[in-house]
C-alpha cells in the first residue's frame, strides 16, 4: 500500500489525462456492457412486470401461442377438478391517438365473472369505480382506464377516447377510472379494461379468447393442474405460470440478445485492450523508476502487485464510472429496443424504469476490475522482469526486439494454422468458436508487426507530402511500435466488429430484398393495422369476397400469420391459399421439387418450412412435422424448404385450410391483392378504401410501400450497428488520444528541437495530426482486413446458431467507405488536444528534457 501511495499516486497525478484515458477504456467497456444489458433486462423486466401485474393471483395461464382459441376451451377448463377459478382474457394494444401517449394496453376481461384473480379495485369502500355496471356491460364502447392514464391525459368518467378498432377508429366512453394498484401500473400505466365480449367484437376476435387465467383449488398443486389441463385441452395449448410468457418473450428475442452479448463482449475486450496498452506503455516509461525500486530492494512480487494494484484501482474507478454512464445510456437503448420490439416482433411494451439490478451492477464492476487486472497482467509481469542494471542505463527500449517479433510471427502462424484447421473440421460448434477466438488472437499478435510494416510503407508517402512533418510522424510510429500498435489494434478490433455487423446487415438486406422481390409481388396489400407485425387486429374472411367484387381486382389471396410454439420455440405459421399463391409466386425451394412441393402443400398434404427453421431445427424434406394446435396435433410431411424471412426463429408455410381446421380460426391478417392488367393501382386502392370506409379500419399499402416498410424494420433491427460504429469512433478517439499523449511526451525534446530550428506552431501541430491520421489509416487497413475475416465468422454464427439464415458473403463496401472519413475525422479530433499541448509548454525544458 505504501508503495502504491509513494510510487503510483504521484505517477497518476503527473499523468492525469492518461490516467483518465486508461480509465475511460474501462468506462467504455463497462458502460456498453451495463447499458446494453440493463436496457435488455429492463425491457424484459418491464414485460414480465406487466405480465405479472396483469396476472394478479393467476397461477396458470392457458394459451395457444398467440393464435387464441375458441370459447369452448374455457368451459372445458372450468370443469377441471383442480381449477378453482378460470377466466378468459383478451389483450389488445391499440393506438390512443393522444400525443406522446403511444399505445394503450386494453385488457378484455369478463366483468360478470370471478374477479378474485385480479385486483381491479372496481369498488373500494364507498366509491364504485364504475357508476353503472349494467350500462358498462350493455354498451360495448365502455372502457375503464387507469388513474395514471386518466391523470396524464386529464380524462374523467363520461369523457370520450378514440381508439383504433377493426371497424376503424371508434370513440369509447370512459365509464370508470381504476384506482392506483399493482394492476394500474402495468404497461407503464397505459392500461384500460373493457368487457371481454365487447373486446372480441372491437378487435375482430370472433368467438375466441387469447388466454385463460386460472387459479388452482386449495390443496391441489400447480403441477397437478398442469397435467390435468394438458390432458383435457390437448397439446396445442401451453399451460404455464404467467412467468412463462416472459420466457417466451425472451426466446423470441434470442437473436437480439445474442447481438447485445456480442457487442458488449467486444466493448469489454476493447476496453481491456486499452488498459493493456496503457499499462504496457506505463511499464516502459517507468522502467528506470522500476529499476531504482528494484535496486533499493523491491521484490519482483512487489513490483508485479504494484502494477496489478494500480490496474485494480483503475478498473474499480472505471467500472463505477462505467456503471453510472451505462445506466444513463440504458434509457436511450431501452427506448430503441422498445421500438424495435414493437416493430419487429409486434409486441408492444413500455419501459419506464431502467432495471438497476444490484446483481448486474455488481457483475459489471467485477468484470471491469477483472478485465482491468487481466489486461495488466502481462505488463505487470514485464515490469517484474525488469533488470535493475539495464533499466538504469538509458537507451532504446521501445523497439521490438527481433526475437520477440519472430516469436510473435511464429506463434501467429501456428495459431493461424490451428484456426484454419478448426474451420475445416466443421461440425463441432466449440471447435468453430475456438477457431474464431484464435483468428482474433492471431490478428492481435500480428498487429504490431503489421502496423510497423505498414507504417514503413507509409513513410515515403508521408515524406513526399510533408518532408519534415510527414517523415517525423511516420518515424514516430515506426520508432514506437508498441505505442502505435496499441491504438491501431484497438481500432482494428472495433472496426472488425463494425465491418462484420455491417456486412451481416448488408447481406440480410440483400437477401431480404431478393426474397421480397420473389414473393411479394401483389400490387396491393390490405391490412387491418398500419403496423404489419401487429396481429391482434384481424379481418373476417368475408372481406375477401367484398374485395374480389371491386372492379379492377383480378385476384385476392388471404394470408394469416401467427406465432405458434413448435418444438418449444416460438415460430411463425404463415397460412396462405397455397394453390393461388403457387400460381402467382414461384419460389425455387432450397430443398424439394417445386411442382411437387406446391401440389402437395396446396392439397393440404404437406408443409413447407423456411430454411432458417430447417437449419435451426435440423429438418429435412420428408420428415414428418408435428405442430400442436388447439384442435389437435397437425402431423404432415415436410415437402419443401424455401428461403423465407418472415421470422427470425423460422417459418412454417401451410395451406389456409389447415390453419382454419387446426386453429379453428378463419380470420385474415393480410389480403394480397392483384390488380387487373390495365387498371391503375392508385384507383383500385382508392376504391378499396371507399368500399370499407366507415365499416372497417383498412390500410392499403402498395407493393413499393410494403417493401419500404419491411426494409425500414430491417434497418431498425440493424440499428445496433450504429451503436457499434459509435463505439468504434470512441475507441478511435480514446486510443489515439492515449497514444498521442504518450507520443508527445516521448517526443518532447524532438518537438522542442523542431521549434528551436524554426518550426512554426502550425508545423508542429501538423506532424501530430499526421501521426494521428496515420494511426487511423493503419487501424482502418488492419480493421478492414480483420473485419473481412470476422464477417465470415459472424455469418457462420448467424447461419448455425442464431437465425439459421444463409447469408451471402458480401463485404460492406458502402459502410467501409463511409467509415473512412468518420475514423479519420475522429483521429483528427483526437489529435487536437495533444497537438495543442505539444506547442504549449517551455521550449527550454523540452530541449533539456531527458
Amino acid at each position, binding site marked *: 500500500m505504501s508503495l502504491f501511495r509513494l510510487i503510483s499516486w504521484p505517477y497518476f497525478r503527473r499523468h492525469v489525462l492518461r490516467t483518465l484515458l486508461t480509465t475511460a477504456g474501462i468506462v467504455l467497456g463497462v458502460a456498453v456492457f451495463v447499458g446494453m444489458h440493463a436496457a435488455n433486462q429492463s425491457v424484459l423486466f418491464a414485460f414480465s412486470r406487466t405480465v405479472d401485474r396483469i396476472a394478479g393471483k393467476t397461477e396458470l395461464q392457458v394459451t395457444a401461442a398467440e393464435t387464441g382459441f375458441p370459447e369452448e376451451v374455457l368451459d372445458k377448463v372450468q370443469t377441471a377438478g383442480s381449477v378453482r377459478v378460470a377466466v378468459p382474457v383478451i389483450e389488445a394494444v391499440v393506438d390512443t391517438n393522444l400525443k406522446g401517449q403511444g399505445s394503450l394496453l386494453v385488457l378484455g376481461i369478463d366483468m360478470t365473472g370471478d374477479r378474485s384473480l385480479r385486483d381491479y379495485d372496481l369498488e373500494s369502500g364507498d366509491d364504485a369505480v364504475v357508476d353503472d355496471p349494467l350500462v358498462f356491460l350493455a354498451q360495448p364502447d365502455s372502457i375503464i382506464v387507469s388513474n395514471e392514464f386518466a391523470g396524464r391525459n386529464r380524462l374523467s368518467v363520461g369523457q370520450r377516447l378514440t381508439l383504433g378498432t377493426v371497424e376503424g377508429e371508434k370513440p369509447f366512453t370512459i365509464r370508470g377510472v381504476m384506482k392506483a394498484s399493482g394492476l394500474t401500473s402495468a404497461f407503464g400505466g397505459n392500461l384500460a379494461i373493457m368487457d371481454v365480449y365487447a373486446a372480441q367484437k372491437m378487435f375482430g376476435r370472433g368467438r375466441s379468447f387469447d388466454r385463460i387465467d386460472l387459479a388452482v383449488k386449495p390443496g391441489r398443486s400447480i403441477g397437478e393442474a398442469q397435467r390435468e389441463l394438458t390432458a383435457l385441452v390437448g397439446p396445442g395449448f401451453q399451460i404455464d405460470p404467467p412467468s412463462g410468457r416472459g420466457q417466451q418473450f425472451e426466446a423470441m428475442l434470442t437473436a437480439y440478445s445474442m447481438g447485445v452479448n456480442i457487442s458488449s463482449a467486444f466493448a469489454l475486450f476493447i476496453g481491456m485492450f486499452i488498459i493493456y496498452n496503457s499499462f504496457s506503455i506505463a511499464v516502459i516509461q517507468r522502467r528506470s523508476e522500476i529499476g531504482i525500486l528494484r535496486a533499493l530492494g523491491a521484490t519482483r512480487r512487489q513490483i508485479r502487485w504494484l502494477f496489478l494494484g494500480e490496474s485494480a484501482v483503475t478498473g474499480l474507478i472505471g467500472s463505477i464510472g462505467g456503471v453510472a454512464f451505462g445506466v444513463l445510456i440504458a434509457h436511450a437503448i431501452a427506448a430503441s429496443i422498445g421500438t424495435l420490439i414493437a416493430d419487429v416482433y409486434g409486441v408492444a411494451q413500455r419501459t419506464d424504469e431502467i432495471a438497476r439490478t444490484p446483481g448486474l451492477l455488481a457483475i459489471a464492476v467485477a468484470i471491469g476490475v477483472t478485465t482491468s487486472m487481466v489486461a495488466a497482467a502481462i505488463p505487470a509481469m514485464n515490469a517484474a522482469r525488469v533488470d535493475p542494471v539495464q533499466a538504469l542505463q538509458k537507451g532504446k527500449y521501445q523497439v521490438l526486439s527481433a526475437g520477440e517479433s519472430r516469436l510473435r510471427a511464429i506463434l501467429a502462424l501456428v495459431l493461424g494454422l490451428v484456426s484454419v484447421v478448426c474451420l475445416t473440421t466443421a461440425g463441432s460448434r466449440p471447435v468453430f468458436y475456438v477457431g474464431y477466438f484464435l483468428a482474433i488472437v492471431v490478428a492481435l499478435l500480428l498487429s504490431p508487426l503489421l502496423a510497423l510494416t505498414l507504417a514503413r510503407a507509409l513513410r515515403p508517402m508521408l515524406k513526399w507530402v510533408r518532408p519534415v512533418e510527414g517523415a517525423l510522424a511516420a518515424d514516430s510510429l515506426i520508432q514506437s511500435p508498441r505505442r502505435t500498435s496499441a491504438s491501431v489494434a484497438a481500432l482494428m478490433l472495433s472496426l472488425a466488429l463494425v465491418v462484420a455487423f455491417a456486412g451481416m446487415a448488408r447481406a440480410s438486406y440483400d437477401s431480404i430484398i431478393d426474397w421480397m422481390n420473389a414473393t411479394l409481388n401483389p400490387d396491393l396489400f390490405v391490412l387491418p393495422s398500419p403496423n404489419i407485425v401487429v396481429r391482434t387486429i384481424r379481418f373476417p374472411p368475408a372481406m375477401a369476397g367484398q374485395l374480389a367484387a371491386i372492379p379492377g381486382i383480378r385476384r385476392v389471396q388471404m394470408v394469416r400469420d401467427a406465432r405458434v410454439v413448435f418444438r418449444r420455440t416460438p415460430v411463425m405459421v404463415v397460412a396462405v391459399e397455397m394453390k393461388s399463391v403457387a400460381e402467382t409466386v414461384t419460389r425455387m425451394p432450397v430443398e424439394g421439387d417445386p411442382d411437387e412441393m406446391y401440389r402437395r402443400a396446396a392439397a393440404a398434404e404437406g408443409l413447407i418450412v423456411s430454411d432458417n427453421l430447417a437449419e435451426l431445427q435440423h429438418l429435412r424434406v420428408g420428415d414428418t412435422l408435428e405442430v400442436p394446435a388447439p384442435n389437435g396435433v397437425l402431423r404432415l410431411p415436410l415437402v419443401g424448404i424455401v428461403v423465407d424471412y418472415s421470422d427470425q426463429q423460422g417459418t412454417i408455410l401451410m395451406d389456409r385450410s389447415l390453419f382454419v381446421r387446426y386453429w379453428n380460426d378463419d380470420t385474415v391478417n393480410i389480403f394480397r391483392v392483384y390488380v387487373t392488367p390495365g387498371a391503375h393501382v392508385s384507383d383500385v386502392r382508392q376504391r378499396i378504401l371507399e368500399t370499407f370506409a366507415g365499416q372497417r379500419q383498412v390500410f392499403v399499402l402498395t407493393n413499393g410501400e410494403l417493401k419500404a416498410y419491411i426494409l425500414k424494420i430491417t434497418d431498425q433491427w440493424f440499428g445496433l450497428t450504429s451503436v457499434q460504429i459509435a463505439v468504434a469512433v470512441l475507441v478511435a478517439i480514446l486510443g489515439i488520444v492515449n497514444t498521442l499523449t504518450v507520443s508527445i511526451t516521448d517526443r518532447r525534446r524532438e518537438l522542442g528541437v523542431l521549434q528551436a*530550428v524554426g518550426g512554426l506552431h502550425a508545423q508542429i501541430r501538423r506532424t501530430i495530426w499526421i501521426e494521428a491520421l496515420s494511426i487511423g489509416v493503419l487501424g482502418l487497413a488492419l480493421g478492414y482486413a480483420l473485419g473481412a475475416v470476422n464477417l465470415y465468422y459472424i455469418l457462420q454464427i448467424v447461419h448455425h446458431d442464431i437465425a439459421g439464415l444463409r447469408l451471402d458473403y458480401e463485404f460492406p463496401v458502402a459502410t467501409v467507405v463511409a467509415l473512412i472519413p468518420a475514423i479519420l475525422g475522429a483521429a483528427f479530433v483526437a489529435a487536437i488536444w495533444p497537438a495543442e499541448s505539444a506547442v504549449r509548454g517551455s521550449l527550454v525544458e523540452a530541449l533539456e528534457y531527458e
Partner: protein
Amino acid sequence: MSVAAAHMIALEHVTKQFAGKRRVTALDDVSVAIPRGEMVAIIGPSGSGKSTLLNLVGGLDRPTAGSVRVDGEALAGLTDDNLTRVRRDKIGFIFQFFNLLPTLTSLENVGLPLHLRGWPRKRVEERARELLTLVQLEARMDHLPDELSGGERQRVAIARALSVYPPILLADEPTGNLDTRTGQEILALVRDLHSRLKSTVVIVTHDMSVAGSCERTIALRDGRIVDDVRRAAPNPTRGEHVALQAD
C-alpha cells in the same frame, strides 16, 4: 550602460525569474550589447545564468523584465510564431547534446530548417550537401546520428545551424560533450566559420580555452555580469581573467 540599436544583440535591464516553490532569479538586471560580427564567450559557474541569457537571446524563452533586441528587432512583443521566424532567419543553434533527430540522416537533419521554411526539395538538398561539405562530412551524408561519432554529430548540428547562413550563431557548451581534441576541432570550425561568414557568435562555455579563443568574454555570477573583457587580438590559448573562473 547604453546600447546602440545598431548592435546585433542588445539586452537592456533584463531580469529573468523562475517561479516555483522558491522564486529563483536567474538573471538580475543585465544589460549587454554585442556588435555585429563579434565572437563572444559567456562564462560563469553553474547557475550563474549564462544558459538563461543564451535562451533569451535565442528567443527560446522570454524575460521577466527588460528588453531583448536581435538585429534591431524587439522580441518582447512577438508572438511565438514570429519569434520562431526571427529564430529561423537570424539564429543558428548549436547544442551540447547535439539534438539531432535520431530518425533522420545527416542530410535530412541539416535540411530540416530549410524544409520548415518551405524551401523546394531540390534546393534543400543542394544546400544541405553544401553545408555538410563545409563541415567536412561529405562522406557521412546518409548516415543516421547513431552511426556517427560525437564530433561528427556536432558537425552535423553546426551544419544544421548554418542552414540559411544566419547572422547569429548561438552555441551552448558546444564542446561540453566531446573529448578535448574533438572539442578543439569543433571550436576551430566555429572560429573558421565566424571569420568566413562574418557571423555574430555567442558561446556559452565552462572551458577557458574556448573562452580564450573569443574576442570578448562576459563573465556572469549569480545572474549579474561581473566582468566584460574585450581582446584586440584574441589569444586562442589563454584567457586573461582566469581568476573569474569558478569551476
